[in-house]
């Protein structure tokens, strides 16, 4: 655990208590139908719980104080995301409080910040990033086109998956105002109201019962003041945003992995077979010891990256990829072992193991898969 100040320690304890009481894993179950899939009538999160999170100030942790936030920094928000990850608490906290707020803080002008940050900070507005367009996170293949029309722009194309897309009010949309896909020049970020005419949102019924969406842009008209940062110069801002998003989800994954591991340990300490507690079998002891080591690497990498954001460390891109890839490997292994080490009961919808497995696979793909981040780290380090 990184060295925390008093505020951060309080925040972490509070988040842990709240998640345990208000958003235990059973809460997630209400989003599932009895067949183990997402419920058709669900919206992928609990609005009342979201209001409580906002009331506790979590939605404003990254927002500046003059826009209703507390400016506590990424390590603080990371601690909360980790606690949410432990109980698989489903909410737009990452999409909105981390990604959307970061976008406005880093790229927004005074008017844009004044327009959006107070709402994002108090939770009344939900924001998200609309970046990916195909099955893989591939910012280098970004294709959605923005063509000049009048003094603004017209957006046409598809975004999918957009995290928390069905409930978001604000989407930060990455588009090409010029240049072909694959060229960094010409990428522009737009602040788009999801109620804009021509924007159709279709829910994606995902294995983890959250509700990302497909956004179809059919000549959606945006005004010039919707441009975040400079026209055509959004690539750097987008990179910075993706790094922060990746670190945020890695923090959530760290929480899920550590809780899954603790659940495994509990079972190893109690389940009896062959007249012995199964945790006394050396094969299982060693598997647990190795997973524990992986968990340590993950915690270190995630904390390193969170602190790097707060300190403005220029090594962030590599550290963000290190955090996401390490968390991906570890959560992948632990969530699989969570099923394996529970035997038959681990395969049932009634048991939590499947919920961790489902969320793990989704989180692994979110904001760049393990493979994507390893490749990026490799490029950044001259491999």
């Amino acid at each position, binding site marked *: *655990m*990184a*060295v925390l100040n008093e505020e951060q320690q309080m925040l972490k304890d509070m988040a842990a208590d709240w998640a345990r009481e208000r958003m235990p894993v059973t809460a997630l179950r209400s989003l599932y139908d009895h067949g183990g899939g997402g419920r058709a009538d669900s919206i992928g999160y609990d609005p009342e719980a979201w209001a409580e999170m906002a009331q506790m100030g979590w939605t404003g942790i990254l927002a500046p104080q003059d826009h209703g936030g507390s400016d506590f920094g990424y390590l603080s928000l990371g601690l909360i995301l980790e606690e949410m990850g432990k109980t698989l608490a489903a909410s737009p906290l990452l999409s909105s409080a981390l990604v959307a707020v970061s976008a406005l803080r880093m790229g927004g002008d005074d008017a844009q910040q004044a327009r959006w940050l107070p709402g994002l900070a108090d939770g009344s507005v939900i924001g998200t990033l609309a970046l990916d367009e195909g099955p893989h996170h591939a910012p280098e293949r970004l294709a959605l086109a923005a063509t000049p029309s009048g003094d603004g722009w017209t957006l046409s194309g598809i975004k999918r998956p957009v995290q928390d897309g069905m409930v978001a009010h604000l989407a930060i949309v990455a588009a090409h105002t010029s240049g072909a896909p694959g060229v960094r020049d010409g990428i522009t970020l737009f602040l788009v109201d999801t109620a804009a005419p021509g924007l159709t949102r279709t829910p994606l019924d995902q294995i983890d019962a959250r509700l990302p969406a497909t956004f179809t842009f059919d000549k959606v008209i945006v005004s010039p003041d919707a441009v975040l940062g400079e026209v055509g110069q959004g690539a750097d801002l987008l990179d910075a945003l993706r790094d922060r998003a990746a670190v945020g989800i890695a923090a959530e994954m760290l929480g899920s992995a550590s809780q899954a591991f603790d659940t495994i*340990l509990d079972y*190893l*300490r109690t389940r009896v077979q062959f007249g*012995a*507690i199964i*945790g*006394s079998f*050396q094969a*299982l*002891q*060693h598997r*647990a*010891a*190795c997973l*524990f*080591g992986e968990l*340590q*690497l*993950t*915690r*270190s*990498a995630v*904390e*390193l990256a969170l602190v790097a954001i707060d300190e403005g460390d220029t090594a962030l891109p590599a550290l963000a990829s*290190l955090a996401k*890839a*390490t968390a991906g490997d570890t959560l992948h292994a632990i969530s699989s072992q969570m099923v394996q080490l529970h035997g038959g009961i681990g395969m049932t919808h009634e048991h939590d193991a499947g919920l961790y497995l489902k969320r793990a696979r989704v989180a692994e793909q979110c904001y760049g898969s393990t493979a994507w981040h*390893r*490749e990026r*780290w*490799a*490029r950044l*380090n*001259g*491999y």
Partner: protein
Amino acid sequence: MVESEAIDEQAFRLEARAWLKANFPPSLAHVPGLIFQGDRHTAEANADYQLWRQRMADKGWGVPNWASRYGGADLTSLHGKIIGEELTAIGGFNPIRSYGTMMLGPTLLEYGNEAQKLEHLPFIASHERRWCQGFSEPGAGSDLASLQTRCTDMGDHWLVNGQKIWTSGADQADWCFAIVRTDTSRKQGGISFLLIDMASEGIEARPIVLISGSTHFCEVFFNDVKVPKGNLVGQVNQGWTIAKRLLQFERNSLSEVKADITPLSPLAHEYLGTDALGRIDSPDLRARMVHNAMRHEAYMATVHRFAQEAKNGGPSNGVSTLKNLWSGIIQERSELLVELMGANGLGWAGDAYGEAEREAARALLHSKAFSIYGGSFEVQNNITAKHTLGLPG
């Protein structure tokens, strides 16, 4: 408060930098310190090494956080860390580093009496006395407590009979810290911790050749060896507790070092070529190198984090986790280095191979020991499972 500490730290850093610059012999820059630590003859034959050792000994900076009466410099571990960093920055090494500083010294500081500390610590701090570790026996490896080497109370001295094995550097050592059996009726409770002068009559050390070609370790025979009564550390039959503590220090030092291994990428480009996109031209090998390098980076962050967390300063149970991560990552790296060199990484001797290539082959062979000594990989996992994770049995 924080600020004044920061200034103090910076001031000490500048002081250390200046002193090291003035005193570290340039001829030793980037020479691996291990060649002197591992071989007495190399150390004695190198005048610059001897000069460097003596200067560090006089300054007390080989063990900066030991008390000055024991040969240290009365500094904090933060100072020690700064000295280490500044040393690394100029391609230097600590000439005092040895089994004495890594294992016996910290153990004596906790369990030795004042006479023992004064007799031995200053010579460890000056690296004038080489130590070896007489723990393992032919029948007692992982199950160390089953050791048989007898130590009998003869009234005015101890009498030692038996055999140790895998004793690193025993043929070059001046002294040996050993665990011996003082009571045959109890296993762990019948062991004592003894300091033995290797010049004593009745000791014979026979070097054993390793797969890497080095004669790193020996069999050591003890035949009616007389040891003064004052050489027993702690209480009679308390040796197991002391040995376990020493093994923690050993694991800690094993997992702590090797901070500054160089990235494999430049070498890989050299040996494997570069593709049109600027990548190492061997996708599979490249992927495994990257995976290993990332694990290494996360591992270094973990060493750092554990150190921050261990507020009380001493090594803890986390050491077993670190040791296994470290041995696995370094072994894999050794394999990758040879693999990227291809056939050139498989040379044993001769001019057909560069020095670095021959070293890579030997390092690969030697690296297999990392998961055996200091408690094997499996034994570390047992420790983690039981003591850290609280699993039964």
